[in-house]
């Protein structure tokens, strides 16, 4: 089983403690190996998320994935996988066969970030900025898209999973948005075939662009129903 329990991509869902316990208990009992993708964990905005599934794994049932790509820089190309030593040995052998290891320079830079405490300071800045960005995005959504769509406010990460109400079926919203100069991710790339979902990220665009982009999306929908 592959799962992304903390600020799930694309829905932003956060799995609470009780569900985590239920899930890990089930997987251990059924001997179902778990891949826990936890790359958004450090991007919490309101409260620290519950501990990873991996923290309750005493049987080596969980392979745990983390990365600096979402929180610091994807350009470093540094992430990690944690698991039983025999499994890690096997994966390390395959990694050697594919690229002879990650760059020393990147690894030393990553080590310095983590061990100097600067990474934790940086995360505080990131959270502050994400909190502000999320506010701007949600305010714009309330202002422009509330007649046409619904969403949950994410507690962390940078995605808002927006459902366009079924009374406002928008054909090819992705293409129309792109022609208006706005890039969104259509739900269908995440296997959501209804065409009623888009994933908005408030992590990248400037605050003005966030507001403008969400306004333009509402215009596209409005236009279709004129």
């Amino acid at each position, binding site marked *: 089983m592959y799962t992304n329990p903390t600020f799930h991509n694309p829905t932003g869902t956060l799995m609470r403690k009780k569900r985590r316990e239920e899930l890990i208990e089930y997987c251990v009992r059924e001997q179902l190996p778990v891949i826990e993708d936890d790359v958004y964990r450090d991007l919490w905005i309101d409260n620290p998320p519950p501990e990873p599934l991996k923290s309750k794994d005493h049987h080596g049932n969980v392979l745990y994935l983390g990365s600096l790509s979402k929180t610091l820089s994807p350009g470093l190309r540094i992430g990690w996988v944690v698991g039983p030593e025999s499994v890690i040995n096997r994966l390390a052998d395959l990694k050697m066969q594919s690229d*002879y290891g990650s760059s020393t320079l990147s690894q030393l830079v990553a080590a310095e970030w983590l061990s100097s405490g600067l990474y934790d300071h940086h995360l505080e800045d990131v959270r502050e900025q994400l909190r502000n960005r999320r506010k701007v995005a949600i305010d714009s959504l309330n202002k422009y898209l509330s007649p046409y769509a619904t969403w949950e406010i994410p507690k962390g990460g940078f995605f808002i999973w927006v459902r366009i109400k079924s009374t406002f079926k928008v054909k090819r919203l992705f293409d129309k948005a792109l022609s208006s100069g706005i890039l969104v991710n259509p739900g269908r790339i995440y296997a959501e075939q209804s065409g009623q979902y888009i994933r908005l990220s408030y992590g990248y665009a*400037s605050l003005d662009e966030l507001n403008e982009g969400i306004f333009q999306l509402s215009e596209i929908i409005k236009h279709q129903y004129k």
Partner: protein
Amino acid sequence: MKKPKYQAIVEYIKARISKGEWTIGSQIPSQRHLAKQFEVNRSTVITALEELMADGLIEGKAGKGTVVTNNTWTLMGKQTSTNWNENVTLGIHKPSISTVQEINEAESDDSLIQLSKGELSPEIFPLEKMKSIVQKVSSQLTPFGYEEPKGNVKLRHAISEYLKRRGVNVSPSSILVVSGALQSLHLISIGLLKRGSTVFLEFPSYLYSLTVFQSAGMELNSLSMDKEGIMTDSIYQTKEKGKIFCIPIQPFIIQQVL
């Protein structure tokens, strides 16, 4: 009966390939371009490209668009045999992949408002701190060559400490440094899972926009989510449904053999 519009596109592309005008490795025109040329919707172009992909003639390549991957005559004439597993996978995934490629392409377009990127804004990038760390690292640099298979020891210690603060207690020897979560998934898919295994995952999921498990011969099987994530009950149900679903396949295979 009139030929479907997408068929005209399929035939056009096949003709260009079989004449040797579009050789292996060459990029075919963009979806936008083809839609304009044939005066059809993008979705029609996508249907055509899917068919050509299923035939093994073209393939989406990251950063390169869609390229010609085959041109042998045998392949040109070959009727695709019915393999439900593969067809189902293709049905779900190929359209996504072309969209994903388009998104990847558009993400480097600065004139667009990027509400798609799963990346922190340059406004948040800690450039000054990064510069000072790089300088510090460079001043302490010693000659370096290949690293240990699991990655730099110093980094693995730092990760181990970092994880401890997040409730995960592991020693550096249980940590492998990779180039990102995607490499982890790739290594797991080629190193640990058997072909034909089923990977359960959330529905919807980011994993559907990649082909990492499908390329290694695995099937994806969706689990329902509520506001707290995967519904544990749905795993049991999905597993059972999977078993029932397999039964009708059996007589079909026998028939094929006969």
